[in-house]
């Protein structure tokens, strides 16, 4: 009656791929960052599922740290975006003239 591990893997795989596609396709820097959050959540699902499977708390600890890092990244990333917006008045990557992708 329990859910096989592979279901979790499949779910996280879908979410991860969605995130990757989002990063590659979208041009709004905010949405790119949201897509990165999707990738991180997919990772966390994996960790928690494996952690439950192994009965090992290590995976959950990893998620805890991943969350911390995600929060830190967001803070820095949004600060960069704000500073950039002040300088350029846009956060659309296509409009950054100096540095092309």
């Amino acid at each position, binding site marked *: 009656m329990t859910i096989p591990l592979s279901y979790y893997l499949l779910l996280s795989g879908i979410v991860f791929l969605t995130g990757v596609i989002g990063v590659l396709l979208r041009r709004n820097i905010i949405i790119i960052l949201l897509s990165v959050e999707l990738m991180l959540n997919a990772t966390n699902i994996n960790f928690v599922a494996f952690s439950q499977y192994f009965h090992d708390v*290590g995976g959950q600890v990893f998620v805890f740290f991943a969350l911390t890092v995600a929060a830190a990244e967001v803070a820095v990333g949004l600060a960069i975006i704000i500073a950039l917006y002040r300088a350029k008045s846009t956060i659309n990557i296509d409009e950054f003239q100096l540095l092309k992708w």
Partner: protein
Amino acid sequence: MEQAFFFYFAFVIAAASVLVIAVRNPIYSAMALLVMFFHVAGLYVTLHAEFLAAVQIIVYAGAILVLYLFVVMLLNMRQDDRYHRQWPMAAAVGLTLFIEAVILTAMKGWTAPPVATGRETTVGEAGNTEAIGDVLYSTYLFPFEVASLILLVAMIGAIILAKKDPEAVNSEG
């Protein structure tokens, strides 16, 4: 029963993920992400990671996403239409969160750890918050400190980068 829960959470998570990258308006994206965060937290509860579920909601939904929305509101002035069609989205978000809340209350008492392999640090029966707290300050003390440094960098970095007046730092000449 558990499978039903899983499939519900999985479906909403996947659908919300796709929405995050599919909709045009960053606000809608963020809202879809909010739904996703809540359901991931729900999934954690079904996996007996209550502590992480709480952290997920507090940190992701409470802090990170609010930060995103704040920045989106602050910067994205051009899309004026976002105020007009917000009720369907509000309804969608509200509905899914409501369903999730119902499910999580309904599955209280469901405990079925799949396979016990007996690793070094096993999750206690009493819930995992205590177990995580225990290892966090013993086994994982070192990464804990590193993480604190990461937060320090983020804090100071954000302050430096987002400070309003770039000329203020140039006082030295």
